[in-house]
């Protein structure tokens, strides 16, 4: 029995020393990681219709243990909870004692999605978006850790305050008029607009009276259209179609127009 007691005593002692060492070294490594972890400057770029916001994570020192299964997920939602973007970055292994290890997390924003369905109001209204960020990692391969936060991100509408500013008509001849329509908007988005806007003038019955197309202004402003119409008094609705490199949107109707 004495041998068994001695063996159990040794086992408990060795196991305790091992656990104590692991506790101290892992706490020390966690401190090193916490002190060395930093976020670089976010950069934006455009790939096709996808806006990419790159957020670099910098590890100054990863300490004495590997970081496995490093995973960053960001979910961007609008005020109604509709998902705008979900991006994930996975790094299987960040080796121990790594200095200046950088992980780049790309947040992808498909602008064409903004022009669809429930999210189209984001083209015209500034609002706050909710960003849920979840960071998961497996420390020393035995301690899974999860850190989550949600932050509010201001959203600037690319076609903020879109309106018909002025409409007038000049007579060119019998049953021939030139309507001058000025539309205006402000681009509050972080990207410049390019592409075209098409304006169709419609009467009350929805018949097309005339149409014109012109280029969009990168940061907004006033865009004049000059469109030949048979009778300006019949103009009731301005119908707009936007074709940009980020999104296509239309029709967008501005009704109750009156020639003064």
């Amino acid at each position: 029995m004495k041998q068994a007691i001695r063996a159990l005593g040794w086992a408990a002692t060795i196991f305790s020393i091992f656990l104590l060492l692991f506790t101290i070294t892992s706490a020390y490594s966690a401190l090193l990681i916490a002190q060395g972890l930093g976020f670089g400057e976010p950069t934006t770029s455009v790939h096709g219709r996808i806006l990419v916001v790159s957020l670099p994570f910098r590890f100054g020192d990863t300490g004495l243990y590997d970081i496995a299964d490093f995973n960053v997920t960001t979910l961007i939602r609008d005020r109604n909870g509709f998902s705008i973007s979900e991006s994930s970055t996975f790094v299987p292994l960040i080796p121990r004692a790594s200095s200046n290890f950088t992980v780049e997390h790309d947040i992808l924003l498909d602008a064409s999605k903004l022009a669809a369905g429930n999210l189209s109001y984001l083209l015209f209204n500034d609002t706050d978006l909710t960003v849920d960020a979840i960071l998961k990692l497996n420390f020393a391969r035995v301690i899974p850790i999860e850190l989550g936060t949600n932050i509010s991100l201001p959203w600037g509408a690319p076609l903020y305050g879109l309106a018909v500013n002025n409409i007038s008509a000049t007579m060119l001849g019998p049953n021939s008029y030139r309507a001058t329509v000025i539309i205006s908007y402000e681009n509050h988005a972080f990207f410049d607009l390019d592409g075209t806007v098409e304006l169709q003038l419609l009467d009350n019955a929805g018949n097309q009276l005339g149409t014109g197309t012109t280029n969009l202004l990168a940061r907004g402003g006033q865009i004049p259209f000059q469109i030949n119409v048979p009778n300006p008094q019949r103009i009731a609705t301005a119908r707009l179609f936007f074709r940009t490199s980020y999104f296509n949107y239309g029709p967008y109707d501005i009704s109750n127009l009156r020639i003064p």
Partner: protein
Amino acid sequence: MLPRVAKATVKAVLYLIFLYIIPTLIVSQLSSFAPDLFSTYTDYLAIFAAIVIFFVVASELTAGTIYQYAFNIGRALTLMIFFILALQGGVISQDFEAQGFNFHFAIDLRIYLAMLISIDLLSLARSVLQALNFLSQQVEQQHPTPLPPDDF
């Protein structure tokens, strides 16, 4: 009795330094990083140190009796329950605020908890065997095994 008390006092002071004062300093350093997250654990450290010191002193004062092993068994069982409660069953989850942002933090310490419980189980097994050994020795002293006859 006096040497026992002296030994128990020395042990209590050493345990106080290594199980309470030094860890509290480390945790207070960590608290500057996320005060909400670590402040709870200062209380747990105090409870842990109190449990260990109580049982160590009690075990020392009752050395040479069956109560010494009873206290050792009690310590192993109490620490197992304490670890399970302090580590919330192995998955600690907490909300805290840092640098103006609200964070949700979760850490899965089930493997670590399993290691802690394993050590306590080893200590428990050792204490039970020691108690059995002590009792059997006492019985042997009270009823010594008769020697074989000379002409055997």
